């Protein structure tokens, strides 16, 4: 359970990066945060593990006020993976990279070995166990960075732009990993610009603009609302646009539903 309550944050004099954000995130939710460049998405997620502390308002994570504890304590509960894997990879081998956080959190060696094994298999990295992470391709590095956080089994998982530069196959695999973790009861938060990814895989979406939350709700309702799309720098998913253009009474972002709707329209007319 995360509750963000009237949080403001500004990096210096002048404009605030966050300007009174209220947000409730329940246990084992899967949600996306979208919004224009500079909307404050990264600033917001850095509040979740205490890297940033609210200048006004408060952030409560699992009953703990983030101002009253350390990043290291919160990081155990909230696993935050940043966009660029080059900003975290440093160890000689993939295996050591994966055990970094586990060692930091002081887990016993047997436990560490077990978790690393799990992560190597889950992220299809077993073949790279002894490789240097620097020699991996972009997509592989990304997997290592995800694995190195997910291996310590945080209850809340936050991914900042996990899909940039990823091809379709990698995205689909990422989505199924996230869905699986979510089914196991984890809360998963994804920050992204990839609206089609959100439309396909994520049930709840929070739209931010200029440091504020401007919309929040089920994806299939939010992404088909023209007013929300206009107010933020997101473009509607193709199917939402299609729905509007053919004048569907209930616009949809679901391929099956759209095909069915169109079939109805075409069949009626053939009669």
């Amino acid at each position: 359970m995360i509750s963000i309550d009237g949080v403001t944050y500004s990096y210096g004099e002048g404009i605030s990066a966050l300007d009174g954000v209220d947000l409730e995130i329940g246990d084992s939710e899967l949600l996306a945060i979208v919004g224009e460049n500079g909307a404050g998405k990264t600033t917001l997620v850095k509040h979740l593990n205490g890297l940033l502390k609210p200048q006004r308002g408060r952030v409560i994570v699992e009953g703990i006020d983030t101002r009253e504890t350390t990043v290291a304590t919160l990081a155990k509960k909230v696993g935050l993976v940043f966009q660029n894997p080059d900003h975290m990879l440093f160890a000689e081998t993939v295996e050591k990279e994966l055990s970094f956080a586990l060692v930091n959190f002081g887990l016993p060696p047997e436990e560490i070995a077990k978790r690393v094994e799990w992560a190597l298999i889950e992220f299809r990295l077993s073949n790279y166990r002894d490789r240097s992470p620097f020699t991996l391709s972009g997509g592989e590095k990304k997997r290592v960075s995800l694995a190195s956080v997910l291996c310590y089994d945080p209850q809340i998982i936050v991914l900042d732009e996990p899909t940039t530069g990823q091809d379709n196959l990698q995205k689909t695999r990422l989505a199924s990993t996230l869905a699986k973790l979510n089914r196991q009861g984890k809360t998963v938060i994804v920050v992204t610009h990839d609206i089609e990814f959100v439309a396909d895989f994520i049930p709840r979406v929070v739209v931010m603009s200029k440091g504020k939350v401007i919309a929040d709700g089920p994806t299939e309702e939010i992404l088909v609302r023209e007013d929300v799309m206009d107010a933020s720098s997101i473009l509607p998913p193709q199917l939402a646009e299609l729905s509007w253009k053919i004048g569907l009474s209930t616009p949809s972002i679901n391929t099956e539903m759209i095909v069915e709707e169109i079939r109805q329209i075409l069949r009626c007319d053939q009669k």
Partner: protein
Amino acid sequence: MKVFKAFEYRRGATILHRIDPRSKLVYLILFTSLVVYFTNPIALLIIFLSFLPMVYLGKISARWSQSLRGSLFFIVFIFIFNFAPTAYYSGSLLDAAVSAIAMSLRFLNLISVFSIFFLTTSPEDLTQSMVQLKIPYDYALTFNMAMRFVPTLSREAQYIMDAQRSRGLEMEKGNFISRIRNYVPVLIPLIISSFRRAELVADAMESRAFGASKKRTSLYVLKMGRGDFLFISAALGSALVLFTVNLLL
């Protein structure tokens, strides 16, 4: 990392920003020499006071004071390491205090004069003035690049620290040795990404015909104006006054 911020140029429209970099270079050299040459804490204090109008003219007080705050740690360090040995060998606490204060003031002055210079001088103008002083463009550009990427580097260091702290790294934990070891997960990605960045920037520059011609044109040429001569005269004049004051003290 905050210390770097204090030298990061921001565009501005003050007189100090408009003065030719070469004139400011004269000022920089003159005052640096004085600071290094002076030993009397009172003279050093007067020099320090002489920076105040400059800071005011250039409207850089926020960043300048940030630079001073950022270097506080070093100043304490310098003070202790000057005070302790002098006190020990000379046996006079007063002497030790005077020399330690002078050393600290010297450091403060150097930070100030460099921060005044870099905060008000755009890297390109500086490069251009170096070229006009007949320094080869390659060297001038290297210098410019180094300046340009300092803030980028410090931002990158911040990203990396955020990422590692999110994986439970506690930088401040442990004794002296393990604290140093704590920096490894930050330094390695920082070094590697700096090399990568250097490579990518080199690609970008080459892709824009860098090195196409030995004699390069520049869109703007720097010209010394009346303001510059006034500025240099004022700098020379005040340096002379300070020099005399120092002799009299």
